[in-house]
Structure formats: C-alpha cells, structure tokens
C-alpha cells in the first residue's frame, strides 16, 4: 500500500473508532477491501471493532453520499408516513468525503435529503480515483490478479506478467479533469487541502463531441448506449437519484418502455442526464459502475458545461447558493428556449 493511502487508512480507522466509542456517531460510512484486486466495498461500521476494516486506496469509486440519506433514515425510530420525527437530536453518521462527494452532500442538504448536523463529515482531499477499465486496457485486457499501489504508480500482476503503471495515466477521466479535489464542507480533515486545480481543457471531451454534426452526434450517442442492458446501475449509484419512484418505474402513465428498444434506452439516458443538470458534480460513480462500459458521464458533463456557461454555476460549492434550475431570476438566460420553429426550418 502506498504511504499516502496507509496514512489515510490509519486515520480513518482511528477517527471512526473514537467517534463510535464516544457515541458521537451511531454509524460510520467508509470503504473496506473488496474480494478482487481493484475493488472496494462501501462499508458501514457500527462498533469500534468494525472500524478496523476501513481501508482507503485509489479504487473508492462509488460516491458515499449515495448511501447517506437511507443510512440516516435507518437510524431514526420507526414512524408512520407523514408523522414528524421525534423531539431531540437524532443519531448521527460519520462519513468520508472527497471534493465531489462533499459537494453532493451540499446538494443533498439544499434539497432537504439530509440534515447537515446529523452528518459528521471527515474530509479527504482526493488524489483522483483509478478507472478499473483504463487499468485493464493498460495491461492489454489480461486478467489482473494482484495490484499493489504505490504513491504514484500501480504494480499490476497477472498470470505471466508484471507491469508498473503510472497511476495518473489510469485515473478516471472525471478525476483527471476535476478542479475541486478538496472537500467543501467537513467537520474533520484527514491530511491537508490541496487547493483548486487549474485544468484549461476540462471540457475537452465534451467539446470534441459538440464539434460533430448533428447527425454524427446522434450516431455517437446511439452507439455509446447501444450496449445498455437497462440494469440502472448508473441511476442507483448516483446520489442525485433519490426519487421514491423513478420515471422509468412509473406505470400510470408509463413514460418509457421496459425492454431494450433503442428508443426507450435513449429516452432513459437523456432523461436521467437532464434530471442531473445543475446538480451533478461529475463524481463519476455512474460510469464506474456501468458493467457495459458506457461513458454516460459525458452526457451529464455536457449539461455541467451548459449550466456553467449559462448560469455561471457549479453545484455543491456553496450551501447558500440557490440551485439555478429550481430558482427563477428575471435575468435568467433564455436564448436557448425554442419559441417557435417554422415548418421546413433546418436546425
């Protein structure tokens, strides 16, 4: 294990243990080692002994904010729907947060999904998480049976091969273009903050697609989602997707067909992306969990770019800044609104 990760792991274990021991939190949400190289499992510790299982490395790819609302609810005394929570403070949860995870917690606070005072946030400045897919590509898709992480490299072994891969080369696209690696809100910090990064071409991937003709773009989109199996891992790994009933599961009316007709699949992906507009922090969970390797993150990245250009807004940076798509201002930009299209007009 790299020395950075080792230090972070030790601190997580001791912070979690002391918070659980003192009763400051009823549960602590972090990561434990998975059963395969390059996989980590989100893990909830409920006693001091459990805290020894926490671990940290470059494969913590799922946004922990995703688990927070349900975990907090699970600690509340059971009550009927609509009944107010009991008087007095409710149990708290300790949770790890990198830049994007903390920004999603800010969005969750703004959208009344969690209460700030019930989350004890332990911030970690992110060094970027590794894409398992990029790593597999880097070793020619041979099966990886062992990964040893150094500070800036990964020693990767498999049957009959051993290679040292530069860590940054296989860091996920969203992390490589991330400008806010530091936690935005936190109660405790592990390590130090590293400051905002300057990435002049952070939207390059989106711009390349924008430069295509309308037909080529549609082709690109259809090709990208052609392998979708509608498992909804992207939706379920996303901390923004908390609707009690998702539009794909509605039956009256039914908005979208249930099998893998390309029209239905396209509708799902377009609507999912639009629901995230102005809220997505580009944490990359969706893309990391997709079993089929679809780069659906690029859809939300495009909307992130649009929201930044139109409203000068980046989600989750300021708990007091209103979300642009749920507030109205007299001077809101509106030139993208189609007022009328004449018959025969070309787009």
């Amino acid at each position, binding site marked *: 294990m790299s020395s950075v990760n080792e230090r972070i792991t030790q601190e997580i274990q001791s912070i979690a243990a002391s918070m659980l021991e003192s009763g400051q939190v009823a549960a602590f949400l972090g990561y434990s080692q998975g059963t395969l190289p390059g996989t980590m499992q989100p893990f909830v510790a409920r006693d001091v002994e459990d805290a020894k299982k926490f671990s940290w490395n470059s494969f913590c790819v799922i946004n922990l904010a995703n688990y927070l609302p349900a975990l907090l609810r699970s600690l509340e005394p059971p009550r009927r729907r609509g009944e107010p929570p009991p008087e007095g403070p409710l149990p708290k949860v300790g949770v790890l947060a990198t830049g994007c995870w903390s920004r999603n917690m800010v969005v969750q606070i703004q959208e009344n999904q969690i209460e700030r005072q019930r989350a004890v946030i332990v911030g970690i400045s992110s060094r970027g998480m590794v894409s398992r897919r990029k790593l597999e*590509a880097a070793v020619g898709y041979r099966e990886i049976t062992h990964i040893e992480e150094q500070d800036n490299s990964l020693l990767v072994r498999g049957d009959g091969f051993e290679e040292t891969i530069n860590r940054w080369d296989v860091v996920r696209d969203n992390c490589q273009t991330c400008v806010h690696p530091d936690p935005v809100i936190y109660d405790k910090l592990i390590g130090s903050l590293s400051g905002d990064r300057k990435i002049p071409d952070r939207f390059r991937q989106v711009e390349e697609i924008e430069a295509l003709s309308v037909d080529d773009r549609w082709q690109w989109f259809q090709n990208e989602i052609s392998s979708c199996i509608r498992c909804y891992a992207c939706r379920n790994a996303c901390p923004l997707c908390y609707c009690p009933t998702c539009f794909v599961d509605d039956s009256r009316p039914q908005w979208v067909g249930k099998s893998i007709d390309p029209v239905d699949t396209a509708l799902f992906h377009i609507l999912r992306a639009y629901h995230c507009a102005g809220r997505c922090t580009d944490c990359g969970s969706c893309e990391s969990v997709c079993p089929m390797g679809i780069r659906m993150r690029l859809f939300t990245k495009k909307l992130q770019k649009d929201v930044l250009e139109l409203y000068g807004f980046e989600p989750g940076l300021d708990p007091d800044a209103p979300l642009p798509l749920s507030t109205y201002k007299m001077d809101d930009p509106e030139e993208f609104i189609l007022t009328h299209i004449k018959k025969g007009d070309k787009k």
Partner: protein
Amino acid sequence: MKPLVLEKEQAGHWLKGLCNNFDIFAPLPTDKGYSDWQKWDGGDLFDVAKGVPKSSIKTFFFPQPEVLFQFNARASAPDAFRLREPKCQDKPRILFGVRPCDARSVVLNSMPYEEDPYFQKRIQETFIVGFLCREGCSTCFCKWTGGSPTGTEGMDVAAIDLGQVLYVEILSDKGKRLVGNGFFRSPTKDEETEAKDFVEKAKGQALDQDVASILRSKGLMHLYDAPFWNSVSEPCINCGTCTFLCPTCYCFDIQDETLRGKGRRIRYWDSCMFPLFTQHASGHNPRGDKLKRVRNRFMHKLKYFPDRFGPISCVGCGRCVRDCPVNIDIRQVLRSLLEI
C-alpha cells in the same frame, strides 16, 4: 459417436458452409475492451479468450424481449384484438465457443422452463458448440456449483483446443448435423493422448463438499434468518447488473405495448433487485427493503432452487463477482450459508 478432429485452417470454411442454414454467434471483441456475443462476420475466432464473455447466452433462449403474441390494437379493425403468433424470422443458430458454465446454465434454466413453448422452441433451434476450459479466471468457480471446466452438459458439440486442431466430440443428434460436411477426420493417437491430458489437467478451484446437498439438508428458515444478511446487503445499490449478467437468472415481467395500432405482448427481463419486482397494486411491497431483495436472490439460487430441482441455480461463471459495482461476492455468501 467417435471423436473427430478439425484443422483450425479448415474451421473457417466449415463454418462458412453452415452460414446458409444458420446464424452463427461467437464471443467477439468489442470496442469497449471485453468480448461479447455477436454475429460472426467470417473473421478469425478460434482463439477463444479464457473465461466467459461479458453477457451470458441466456439472451438466445430468453431474449430481451420475447414477443409472446401480436394483435391489431385498433378497435374498429375487423381483426381487432385477435391474437396472432409472432412472426419469427430467425434462422436456427449456432453458438460457437460456449464455455461449460454457460452451456450448463441452459440445462438448469430448462428445469423451471420445462413447459415453456417459447424457451423450448429456442433450445430446439440453437446448436451449442462448446469450448472446454484449460484454465479459468480468478473469478471462475464452476466446480463449486456442480460443474467442471471440462463439463459438456448442455453442449451439442464439445471442442478441445489443441493448438493447431480442434478435438471435437459430438454429443447429440443436433451435433451430428453440424459436423456432417467433410471437414473432419479421425484423431491420431497423439491427439487422443493430448485431449485426454487436457481434460485431466484442466484446473478449477474446488470446494471439497457437495454444495447442493448440504444446502438442501439445511432448514430453510435457518438460512433465511441467518445473521449476515444485513452486512451482505448493506453495500448493495439495487441495480440489476448481477441478475442481468447472470446466466441462470430467468425472472421476467409481461407487458402489452401498442404503437400506431400495432400491439404486442412482450416478456422482458425483470430483476428481483428492483423494488417494482414485488410491488403490489395495493402499494404494499413484501420485499420493500434491500435486505429482503438481496436475501431473496441468494436464497432463490442457493436454497429454493435446489430444494425444488436438485442443483443450485448458479454455474460459477463469476460474472456477478466481476461486475457487481459494490463487490458483493456470491462465493462469500455461499461459504457463509454452508457454515451456518
């Protein structure tokens, strides 16, 4: 029938000759880095990668979706809502390069689908050319589940890759129809020894226990009430990755779709990981939280299915282990169930 040998150089010609009467599918590389089932385009396919392709072969027997029947949905039409058999223009299919675990999954799925005409028709029209495994991946565990890297259950033809040649065993009448066109010869003594050697040396992680009979002997409620279900299910995000990639998950839902007066009833993949799977019309959901759903998936595969049919409903392909976003590992669950 005696084993035969096919020179790999001849194999392309052999398969091309079959293209008139069959659609041929094989695990072929995709632009996403993994191999997946695709229609064979005449290219090189005889170096079948070790392990299994991304998707299982269930899609050939249990397509996503299956059209059960069609109807005219215009109420004014003379044949309004009269049910018609779906038009099926598929040619019979050859699945080339099926691993023993996937081939065995067809046998297991046939048990609950014994009387399903759609499933059975597709089995009749699909020819499985299996490839035995010399070695598996770290996520392969077919031997735990009652299979074997050199098992031939479910195959019509079983091939052993000996480098220059494929050593072929014909296992069914359907298999005979495939090899009857002159490209095959009898094996030499050396080839026979090599094939025998291949089978003897084939590796595979094993548990020295009869998993299915141990699980059958355990009390259902004892396993259902096991203390570990909360920790197993806690990281689950309730996506359908495990169930959709699994070769032996076969649950479905049914729906009528109408578009511009044309109606069809489809059967499409459903997943016990989704809350909607058990949602009642009343609003009540007997498996409303994820612990119950995760438990059901494992209990179905490892207890309810063996109780009803004998074997466990898992072939050890390792797809769910490999692609679960949160690394819920069925091998750990299986071990926990055996121990309790």
